[in-house]
């Protein structure tokens, strides 16, 4: 590649200015890497604490590089707390939240992106305004609502509340995506060919919008997996407890230095699913954020 570039006389003329820039390019690299290190600092510390020998933790000022590596914590943590149960509970919450949330948001987002109908602007305002309601304002009334409905500490409590919180944002993302990704012409053509209105949605719009749907699903999934405070209020009992709450209780029960590696091992297992999701499907994230403003 470079050889062919150098062979062309036009290209060689460009070599000098490029060298001049390479110093700045290096600075840009250094700054970017530094920012990445800052972002990763706690995760790095989590990993080295999870593997280092306990003796290193009993000294003041533990070193930044572990003196040895032990993996038994990654097994022991599953016996120390019912982590598998917590994981399963969280997975169930995520599954239902994503399914209901994305469905509701996709239908609404589609209607708002395509049709001029009475109340169109009002619904959009309703959705936009919800985005700006501080979550904590809903804490008390929502708790009394779930309490009166007898839903505290049931499996329904978390998916229900998370869906409600996630729907406005997901609706905006999908609305933007439907508008941007393809034009109405395709749908109109399908209608002319005798496809039903639902058929248009199911066979054309949704399949073509998979990146957008995926993006909304990811945002909802990570939110539902990570959320802590609300879960600690409405799903504190062991049979419905989610990973964040379980991990938090573990700190309270075994918060000593000897148990730190164990806790960090658990934290790694809890942090891993969202991180893997983002690494694998990172390109979908910017899809979602890129279109909310369109």
């Amino acid at each position, binding site marked *: 590649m470079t050889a062919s570039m150098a062979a062309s006389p036009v290209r060689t003329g460009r070599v000098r200015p490029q060298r001049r820039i390479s110093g700045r390019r290096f600075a840009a690299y250094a700054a970017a890497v530094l920012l990445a290190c800052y972002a990763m600092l706690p995760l790095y510390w989590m990993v080295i604490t999870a593997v280092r020998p306990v003796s290193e933790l009993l000294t003041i000022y533990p070193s930044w590089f572990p003196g040895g590596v032990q993996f038994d914590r990654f097994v022991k943590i599953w016996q120390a707390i019912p982590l598998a149960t917590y994981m399963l509970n969280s997975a169930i919450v995520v599954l239902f939240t994503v399914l209901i949330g994305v469905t509701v948001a996709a239908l609404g987002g589609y209607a708002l992106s395509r049709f001029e109908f009475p109340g169109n602007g009002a619904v959009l305002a309703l959705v936009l305004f919800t985005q700006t*309601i501080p979550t904590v304002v809903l804490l008390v009334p929502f708790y009394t609502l779930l309490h009166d409905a007898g839903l505290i500490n049931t499996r329904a409590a978390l998916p229900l509340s998370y869906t409600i919180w996630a729907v406005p944002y997901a609706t905006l993302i999908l609305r933007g995506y439907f508008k941007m990704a393809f034009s109405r012409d395709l749908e109109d053509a399908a209608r002319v060919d005798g496809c039903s209105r639902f058929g248009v949605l199911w066979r054309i719009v949704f399949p073509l919008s998979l990146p957008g749907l995926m993006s909304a699903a990811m945002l909802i999934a990570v939110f539902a997996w990570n959320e802590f405070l609300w879960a600690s209020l409405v799903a504190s009992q062991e049979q419905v407890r989610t990973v964040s709450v379980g991990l938090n209780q573990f700190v309270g029960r075994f918060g000593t230095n000897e148990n730190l590696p164990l806790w960090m091992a658990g934290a790694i297992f809890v942090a891993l699913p969202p991180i893997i999701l983002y690494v694998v499907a990172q390109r979908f994230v910017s899809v979602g954020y890129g279109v909310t403003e369109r």
Partner: protein
Amino acid sequence: MEVGSSLDRSRFRRSIRRHGWPLLLVTPVAVILLLFMYAPILDAVRLSLTDASLLRPGQAQAVGLDNYLKIATSKEFWGIAGQTILWSVASVAGACVLGVLAAVLLTTHRRGRPLRGRVIIGGLILAPFVAPPVVSAYTWIYLYSGSGPINGVLNALGATEPVYFLGDTVTKILGVALPLWSMIQVGVWHGFPFFFLMVAAALTSIPVELHEAAEIDGATGWRSFRSITLPLIAPVLEVTIFLELLFRLGGLDLPFLLTGGGPLGLTNVWGVFIYQVGFARLEIGYGAALGVVLFLICTPFAIWYVRRSRRQLAGF
């Protein structure tokens, strides 16, 4: 009058026939939001006018505006309000600067060549955004602790006394207690990936030629950023700052897990305070009133946001 209403009715029927499909599609969203977002807020207003308590369920007495008077005259509350504003503004400002920097570094094309490895670096930068708050909060507590690694570095640099980042009740920097600064630092760390995401998404839509043209004209670095990049990302930045500010004002996971409001209430913020009042002291009525006040403060900004977004989103 009669004629008018029957006309209205037939018009209504016709409109249903014409617009039935989109109305049907939008019903779930509208119903969910009205029933479970807007109705609870009205319920919060109702609760805030009572002395409802989780200790005596079903025995709430109407107390008028007592809860609001209690807020207005509470010294504790005004301190918390100030800390909330500082926590929100400072952590969002820091996150904004770092996020924009990261986005510019990773998306700016120099002579058509983006930074190699930008996908990996970008992925690593997303970590704070993705990691569960429970995990990041406790890891920061450990990093900050008196015998922790940060103090280890300070000690190696010659500090004789350990710094208690989250527990020091004496040290003040610029008149603000050290634990609040430490919490703000975690807020910056947690928030900057979101700015990075939003700004990077906006920046990738800027044509490369624009920067190249500017470079030929001699505009590089800061000037190119000021005159080309910043105007182009300004709308996205505006919305992101707004959403993040609201998220900080109303959010409580991180402050709750990091300090729970302590030491001596020096890091207490509005969200945590509502939690304490409502679910630790069990004074649901007072907690609801605190929520309503926060909601009222946010409303003008929310209206601005809705108007602005609708203007931008208008048109098909």
